[in-house]
């Protein structure tokens, strides 16, 4: 093995959505960083659907942006259909979603990486971590080069021992057309990591020239595409539509006829697949009464005829694939360009991580993305930026950062993973966040910009702009709370027009704004009703006033949990010596080894009584030392 002469602060293995954010964060924080990928053409590849965002995922993208990450800017520059979802269901669950031009997305990210100072990009397959007397010192590659580094971030995606399934045919591969990564997961197992197997899948890619779009429903972009990044002014890419098609009883019949050759049903696949992203055969089997299943036919880019039929992933044999896609209206003549496939891959139990994403077993080793059992580009990127930040801080000898459940979806995700682990590919849902009203897309900057700036990922210039925005919000909140409306003719008329005839003299603007059906913009009709402010500031004022009671309640809950979240349980805690714990609770605590009392409280079966005993024991330990 040839040792390369440069010694890196941070080595990132894998240049997917997690790896790119990790490498950029570390390099931008001043660490000499190496990003290794099996192919330098395959960076930031969207292996499955051509879109970014959606519920909870859009939230993650905004948080990454607030921290100083790249994903939001990248989709803003390469997105070809932008929509805001759930516009009527409340601000907390409003989320952006965009179709990407896959190739442009990948190429732009590659350009950003290439232009980043402190960052080396190299092609190479990592086959092993390089350890000296159990201490991590770098990585070994298949081509015989050893790279030395202080910290290593593993982002292996679906590549570790990847196995592709099309019907009963299967072969090793990290993604269609790519080789798997072999050796690394065996070594991890040898080091004591619990390596498990997960499964995911992707639909076929269809030739748009053979689809009769005139027979499909059309779904257009929003009139005013809303960017993801707080620093993107507007979307300049041309916008194109998606299409909606449906399966029918004949489709289902064809699918059923192929089940005997489905690797899932024949028991060939051992990995566990995601319930929220079932294959079409799964949907047909589990919901036999449903007469049709919907699919969005999404463009893969502006310069390609390939289309992605969402929700139609399958690992059925190719002849069944061809037949069932062609049984759908509008797709009678369709040509498959790339077959659908299922893929199994190795992951490492995330319970073996600290909330910093550093592994408990090997100091200075970090895991992010699918290796932790997650699924999705946004989930990967969210972990990637956190792992990159902490790897950099570690290399610099500084304290790591952790994100709480009350401040970000990234925090919810990481806490779920390291506290409870996962048995299926983990995807973010807004319902996983107990403080959902506080974790909105619109306030991601208010939640995380400060931190992003403090660690050096957000420039002083961006930060200054953010501070101005924050001050304007505070000033306007103060103004609406203290401004009382007069009772002149204009005011009377306005009140009549807005169903507020019952309003008394001396009512504040804030009180008016709290009434259902009155938005900030409506106040413009009152003399002195509004101030000259950006739409973003207006939005914050409106949400914070309208939802004040609910937001305050969630803040109170957070305050109540804070002491538990801050009570650290030492890793060497011996649960067998704690009196009063039931055997079940003891077994759970030993298995999950929670890092704080807060984490312990989220483990199913750990009762309030057990928490009380733990709290007392911590205090006793503290007093003895």
């Amino acid at each position, binding site marked *: 093995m040839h040792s390369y002469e440069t010694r890196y602060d941070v080595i990132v293995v894998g240049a997917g959505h997690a790896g790119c954010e990790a490498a950029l964060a570390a390099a931008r924080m001043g660490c000499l960083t190496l990003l290794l990928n099996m192919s330098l053409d395959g960076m930031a590849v969207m292996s499955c659907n051509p879109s970014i965002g959606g*519920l909870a995922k859009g939230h993650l993208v905004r948080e990454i942006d607030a921290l100083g990450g790249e994903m939001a800017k990248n989709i803003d520059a390469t997105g070809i259909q932008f929509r805001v979802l759930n516009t009527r269901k409340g601000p907390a669950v409003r989320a952006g979603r965009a179709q990407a031009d896959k190739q442009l997305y990948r190429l732009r990210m590659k350009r950003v990486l290439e232009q980043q100072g402190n960052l080396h990009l190299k092609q190479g397959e990592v086959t092993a971590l390089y350890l000296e007397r159990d201490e991590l010192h770098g990585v070994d590659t298949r081509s015989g080069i050893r790279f030395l580094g202080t910290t290593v971030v593993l982002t292996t995606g679906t590549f570790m021992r990847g196995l592709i399934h099309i019907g009963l045919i299967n072969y090793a591969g990290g993604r269609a057309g790519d080789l798997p990564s072999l050796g690394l997961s065996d070594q991890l197992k040898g080091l004591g990591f619990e390596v498990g197997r997960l499964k995911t899948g992707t639909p076929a890619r269809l030739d748009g020239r053979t689809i009769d779009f005139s027979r499909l429903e059309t779904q257009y972009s929003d009139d005013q595409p809303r960017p993801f990044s707080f620093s993107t002014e507007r979307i300049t890419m041309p916008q194109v539509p998606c299409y909606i098609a449906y399966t029918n009883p004949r489709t289902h019949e064809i699918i059923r006829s192929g089940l005997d050759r489905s690797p899932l049903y024949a028991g060939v696949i051992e990995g566990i697949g995601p319930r*929220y992203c079932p294959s079409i055969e799964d949907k047909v089997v589990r919901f036999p009464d449903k007469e049709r299943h919907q699919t969005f036919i999404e463009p893969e880019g502006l310069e390609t005829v390939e289309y992605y039929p969402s929700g139609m992933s399958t690992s059925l044999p190719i002849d069944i694939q061809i037949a069932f896609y062609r049984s759908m209206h509008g797709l009678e003549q369709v040509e498959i360009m790339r077959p659908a496939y299922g893929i199994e891959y190795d992951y490492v139990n995330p319970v073996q991580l600290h909330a910093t994403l550093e592994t408990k077993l090997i100091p200075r080793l970090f895991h992010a993305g699918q290796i932790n059992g997650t699924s999705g580009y946004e989930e990967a990127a969210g972990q990637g930026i956190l792992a990159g930040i902490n790897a950099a801080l570690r290399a610099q000898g500084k304290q790591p950062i952790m994100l709480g459940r009350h401040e970000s979806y990234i925090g919810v995700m990481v806490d779920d993973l390291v506290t409870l682990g996962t048995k299926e590919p983990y995807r973010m849902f*807004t319902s996983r966040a107990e403080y*959902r009203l506080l974790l909105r897309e619109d306030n991601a900057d208010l939640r995380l910009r400060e931190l992003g700036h403090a660690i050096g990922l957000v420039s002083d210039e961006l930060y200054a702009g953010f501070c101005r925005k924050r001050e304007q919000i505070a000033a306007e909140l103060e103004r609406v709370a203290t401004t009382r409306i007069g009772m002149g003719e204009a005011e009377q008329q306005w009140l009549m027009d807005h169903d507020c005839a019952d309003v008394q003299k001396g009512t504040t603007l804030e009180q008016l704004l709290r009434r259902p059906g009155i938005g900030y913009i409506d106040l413009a009709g009152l003399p002195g009703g509004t101030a000259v402010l950006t739409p973003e500031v207006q939005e914050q004022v409106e949400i914070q006033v309208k939802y004040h009671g*609910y937001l305050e309640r969630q803040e109170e809950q957070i305050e109540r949990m804070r002491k538990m979240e801050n009570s650290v349980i030492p890793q060497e805690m011996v649960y067998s010596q704690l009196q*009063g714990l039931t055997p079940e609770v003891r077994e759970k605590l030993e298995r999950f080894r929670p890092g704080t009392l807060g984490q312990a409280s989220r483990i*199913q079966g750990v*009762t309030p009584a057990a928490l009380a005993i733990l709290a007392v024991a911590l205090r006793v330990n503290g007093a003895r030392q």
Partner: protein
Amino acid sequence: MYTEDTIAAIATPPGCGGIGIVRVSGSLADQVGRAIFRGIPGGGFDSHRLYYGHFHRSVDGALIDEGMAVLMRAPRSYTREDVLELHSHGGYLVVRAILQACVAAGARLAEPGEFTRRAFLNGRIDLCQAESVLDIITSRTEASLALAQRQREGLLGRELFAVSDLLTGALATLEAYIDFPDEDIDPALQVAVSQRVTTAQQQLYRLVGSFRFGRVLREGVSVLLVGKPNSGKSSLLNALSCEERAIVSPVPGTTRDLIEEIISVDGLPVRIVDAAGIRRHHGDAVEQEGIRRTVGRLSEADLVLFLADASRPLDHDDLEILALLADRPYLTVLTKSDLPPCLEPSQLPPSLTTLSLSCLTGAGLPQLRSALFDYFMHDASSSPDDLVAISNVRHRDLLQRAVGALDRFSRHAAQDLTYDLLSIDLRDALSAVGEVTGATTPDAVLDRIFSSFCIGK
């Protein structure tokens, strides 16, 4: 839970002594005190000063009792938090009413050992006392765990699971609309959400307002003493209560022939009722009216004790009473064991247990107490319904919280509030019900979404 909210509990053992103390600890202690105690001058409580005044229910201002109140501000208190102590007359009902008023004013019921635990965690007690803290928590929770288990299997448990299932379904539907906006989920299901909530609401109303619940809440577990005159009922009542130094507290609204005592059996409040209605008139047959009333009381009692004088042979009156008891569980108590026995247990029909005791010497009384405790806390043959009685203030509290949350939901849904807010009301209701049944995690809702809706891209 180890949090910083405000807790309340009765600090004196139930039924003991001339005064009863309710203790409140936490940041709301001051507020709770001001809400229910009238007698503090305008400036509010001075710390560590005892005030004379009156306790009122904060909801409707109804007078509960007169008494004293003292606020001990942090850190100069037992828990090193703000602690409020409310001293009232020692009657069980009075103390309970004050505790309920505290809960209504924002405190929650304390967990077993929680005051001591807080005292410890805040550094008020030293290390040596830690072990005993653990013991308290452990032993108390073991009893309550067994209890919770029984309740889960019981009737209340089944009903609450049904409610919880309805709410989980409603929440899962709402969450599916939120998290999967592009899926074609049938819009008609939105109607199903409010139907589910309405059904759950009705069931909860019924549970909260049910007679059993209400009665048990007011009166605790009840034990009825039956036996012919001179079988030793009054002596037993006195013996049990003397031991407890309980004060006699006739319950308002009951007939004069009903005498009762509240005693504590290892912390379990038990109301002992003397069914004095069965008696002879003019040396004649047992009064028919008395029998009718006794039959009514038999069905209200959680447990019946049949008393027979062991120094006399069984007579017609005993048999007549035993005939009333056929088909229902009861304990047989042979009294006057200090006199030469004339009655063998084998002469009596089989009951749950047969005990011998003497009220004069006190022999056998501890055995009776432990038989009572076993019956209510451990005995598998008791009907699960009986157990509703035990931790029931807490349950009612939680179920009322659930009802309140569902009321909010209905009101907010009618105002067309957005889903992100409506889901909070549903979640609150579900978690309150879950605290009784011990179920429902975020994952349970996700599981429900994936099993009910065909989701996936």
